[in-house]
């Protein structure tokens, strides 16, 4: 090993995010002290981001199998079968830490990374979604983070050429110091042409593809495995720089060499770049890997082995190539103007051997690097159950009409047009339902099949009760997919939490995973991919627990997808589901009463399943004219959204004896608003299916009429709904 490298000191080890006991484990595994490059490689493989060391034992409890699951967690993305010889490849991944430090590039490269995960497996990306959590609107950084993140997502996805069709945007002071950017990509591949990352065959060439390696993003994965202190801004050099143009070329070139049968195994260079991709390919294939760094295409001169192994330069891939196809594969990459370099080979030794300038810079046991990373069973504290809030005890501070106006003009419920109009959501010509509905609907190739896509989580529920919150996130995704008429197939989870070394945070993580698992089992909605982002914390203050669920559903005929807009005047409005009026943790309680309190609504998974199946049959049999899931803000907010989307009003009446504000704004689960021409037929079906149903009004006019309340003009409601975000973003920065 070279003597030019720094000596290993306890400070250096700490700077690499390795604990003393972890370092002792490395020395024991190797039988000697590591070199500087080797220390860097270990830190890259053993950080939280790459090793899942705090979450692994809990993630193992999640249901991941179903007859339609082709590939569950553990690959670049999950794969499910949708018939006709086609597979859907999808995953959601966070890019939280980089997006806070440098919003535009952080978010852009988050999109780039998740797209590569999907096309690495041989799929052409057909849609993206983004779940975004920002700090309080009044926080001085929030506006800049929103502007940068949204522009970054658009800048990358629009140029790459994939429609961004959905997602979420929320604001809460608990994200003041850590925004969340969770990007989901969905692709379509031929079922029998999925590409995996496990190498096979000894002496096979390992090829470097894509853009050149630079000094950007070094230690990005380690940075993302630690909380922020006062020095967050100083970490900008760890953020990568995105180049969507190169990514588009890489997509086309990769799909072309895959079609030509050149590829044995392929892996994108994401977190921890060359290190992680090479180790994964070798370790999964029970093979060693030797790399000659002199052959790595570099953007800068004089890069050290350490820098090359830890660079997170974007738009790069590593491939194990069929040797006889080298010329063909190279010519394809040259045509697209991309780098192509054989930089190593697979070996029988199970060693990870790195040469640079004729010197061995690292010689490590490859299996141990990946599989022997520490796994922690961290101690955790169960969250304390919060009291159930009695709706009758909550005094309404304003009229129902005023409360509705306030809610639909609030940051979390207002229209997100300012955001989604910066994303090209119509490119590829297959977007059946654009952003703004319960789920986006995207046609598969020329149809008739289509995918429904959604992302959901209610962090305030997760904080109040991690188990119920975890269940609710899955249930809401299930509902949103059902509300457009699709059959929910599988999900991807993106678990965002604070520092797991704190017992209460670990308790949130464990509770949410249990809830997600329980709901996924009950709803036959397996988890096929995911990502964990911990240490979302600044100066000891953690984010709200935010386990984002990305759901995928299947429609057999895209022309039958259901939308939430009212369709005609004089139709009956029906509430499907129970009507208890649950105000604990509701947005009514928070935005109108100024209280963030109480137990969140419990999730009855049997009711979720029964009601969703009922909704899907109504849609299938043409009995429903509009369907909308009821979630944040309750029934009245859902109704207002249906009215605003159609510019058709409604005359509404709360059932006799109901507590008005709890009825209209309670956030009970497993519920939908449905409109129908023939309410009797729908009611009869509901009775037969043991689904609670209540007629609450009829569509018509240009006004929402609520019993004795002041009538609400739709035009005025739309102004409030559409107004908040553009005017907030237009204020001086």
């Amino acid at each position: 090993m070279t003597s030019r490298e720094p000596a290993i000191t306890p400070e250096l080890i700490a700077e690499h995010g390795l604990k003393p006991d972890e370092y002792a484990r490395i020395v024991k595994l190797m039988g000697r002290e590591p070199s500087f490059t080797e220390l860097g490689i270990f830190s890259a493989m053993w950080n939280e981001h790459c090793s899942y060391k705090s979450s692994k034992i809990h993630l193992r409890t999640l249901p991941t199998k179903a007859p339609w699951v082709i590939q569950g967690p553990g690959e670049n993305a999950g794969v499910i079968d949708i018939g006709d010889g086609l597979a859907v490849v999808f995953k959601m991944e966070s890019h939280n830490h980089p997006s806070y430090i440098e919003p535009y590039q952080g978010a852009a490269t988050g999109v780039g990374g998740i797209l590569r995960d999907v096309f690495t497996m041989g799929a052409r990306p057909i849609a993206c979604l983004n779940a975004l959590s920002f700090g309080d609107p009044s926080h001085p950084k929030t506006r800049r983070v929103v502007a940068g993140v949204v522009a970054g997502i658009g800048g990358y996805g629009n140029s790459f050429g994939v429609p961004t069709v959905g997602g979420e945007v929320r604001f809460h002071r608990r994200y003041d110091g850590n925004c969340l950017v969770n990007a989901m990509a969905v692709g379509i591949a031929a079922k029998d042409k999925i590409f995996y990352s496990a190498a096979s065959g000894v002496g096979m060439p390992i090829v470097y593809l894509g853009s050149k390696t630079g000094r950007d993003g070094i230690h990005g994965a380690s940075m993302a495995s630690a909380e922020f202190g006062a020095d967050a801004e100083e970490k900008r050099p760890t953020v990568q720089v995105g180049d969507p143009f190169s990514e588009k070329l890489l997509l086309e070139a990769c799909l072309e060499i895959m079609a030509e049968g050149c590829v044995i195994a392929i892996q994108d260079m994401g977190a921890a770049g060359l290190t992680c991709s090479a180790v994964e390919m070798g370790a999964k294939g029970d093979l060693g890997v030797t790399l000659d760094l002199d052959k790595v295409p570099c953007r800068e001169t004089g890069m050290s082995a350490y820098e090359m192994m830890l660079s997170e330069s974007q738009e790069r891939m590593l491939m194990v190539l069929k040797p006889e196809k080298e010329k063909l594969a190279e010519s394809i990459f040259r045509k697209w103007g991309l780098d192509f370099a054989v930089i190593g080979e697979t070996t029988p030794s199970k060693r990870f051997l790195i040469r640079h300038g004729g010197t061995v810079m690292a010689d490590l046991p490859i299996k141990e690097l990946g599989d022997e990373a520490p796994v922690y069973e961290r101690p955790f504290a169960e969250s304390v159950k919060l009291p159930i809030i009695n709706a009758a005890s909550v005094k309404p501070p304003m009229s129902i009409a005023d409360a509705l106006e306030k809610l639909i003009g609030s940051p979390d419920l207002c229209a997100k047009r300012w955001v989604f109009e910066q994303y090209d959501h119509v490119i590829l010509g297959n977007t059946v339902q654009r952003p703004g509905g319960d789920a986006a609907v995207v046609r598969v190739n020329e149809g008739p099949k289509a995918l429904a896509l959604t992302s959901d989580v209610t962090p305030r529920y997760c904080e109040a009760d991690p188990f119920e919150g975890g269940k609710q996130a899955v249930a809401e995704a299930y509902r949103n997919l059902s509300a457009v008429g699709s059959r929910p197939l599988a999900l991807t989870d993106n678990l965002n939490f604070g520092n797991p070394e704190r017992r209460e945070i670990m308790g949130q993580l464990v509770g949410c995973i249990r809830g997600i698992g329980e709901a996924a089992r009950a709803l036959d909605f397996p988890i096929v991919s995911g990502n964990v982002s911990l240490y979302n914390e600044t100066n000891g203050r953690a984010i709200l627990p935010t386990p984002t669920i990305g759901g995928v559903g299947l429609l057999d005929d895209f022309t039958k997808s259901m939308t939430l807009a009212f369709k005609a005047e004089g139709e009956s409005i029906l509430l499907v589901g129970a009507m208890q009026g649950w105000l604990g943790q509701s947005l009514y309680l928070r935005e109108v009463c100024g209280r963030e309190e109480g137990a969140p609504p419990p999730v009855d998974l049997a009711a979720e399943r029964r009601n969703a199946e009922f909704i899907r049959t109504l849609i299938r049999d043409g009995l429903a004219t509009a369907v909308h899931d009821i979630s944040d803000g309750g029934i009245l907010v859902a109704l207002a959204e249906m009215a605003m989307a159609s510019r058709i009003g409604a005359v509404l009446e709360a059932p006799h004896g109901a507590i008005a504000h709890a009825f209209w704004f309670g956030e009970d689960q497993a519920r939908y608003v449905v409109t129908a021409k023939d309410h009797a037929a729908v009611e009869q079906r509901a009775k037969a299916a043991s689904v609670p149903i209540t007629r609450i009004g009829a569509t018509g006019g240009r006004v929402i009429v609520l019993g004795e309340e002041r009538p609400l003009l739709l035009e005025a409601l739309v102004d409030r709904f559409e107004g908040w975000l553009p005017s907030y973003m237009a204020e001086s920065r």
Partner: protein
Amino acid sequence: MKSAVLQFPGINRERDMARALRLISGREPTMVWHADTELPAGTDLVVIPGGFSYGDYLRCGAIAARAPIMEAVRSFVQKGGLVLAVCNGFQIACESGLLPGVLMRNAQLRFICRDVYLRVERSDTPFTHGYNAGQVIRVPVAHGEGNYIADGETIARLEGEGRVAFRYSSPDGMVDPNWNHNGALNAIAGIINERGNVLGMMPHPENHVEAAMGRTDGRGLFAGLMDHFERAA
């Protein structure tokens, strides 16, 4: 109608355009690589599709305008061949001198994707004769740099010679700043060249061509072109 769709690195609406051409003309277009120097023999229509050619890292369209295939496109135009240039294609056409003017950043400085309304200004061109003059169509836009501008003399000529093909308008056909999302001068959404054989436009008619997908207002443009070539034959 035999069409050729140009493919520059970074172009990304070529598949949308190819599908629209296939659905309406019944014939698969030929994809032509930027490094080629000739168009396929017998080409009736050249399409420069949307996207981000060369990443748009220089001025939009500036590098593509200098690609080898553009020489062939220029001589095709000189011989009277028809060119449809959409979005990035419009920018490339302006940069390569096929059309006057330039597309600047949207007035709001943000990328905008939404459906817009276009008033068809005249129906006596091969590109627009599938519509009626004054008709309003609804098609999507998706661009960050669609704000058309040219010097006063050029604008006066364009207007005087009736070379504005499409204008952003309200749903009932009124030109109104509230319905001009990118701030284009005179609400110009599309123009033709002097000879009338090159159309550049920012909106995407190719994304609204299927009844099953809900909107068909873009069909008229392609159907009109089909009709033009059938009549000529």
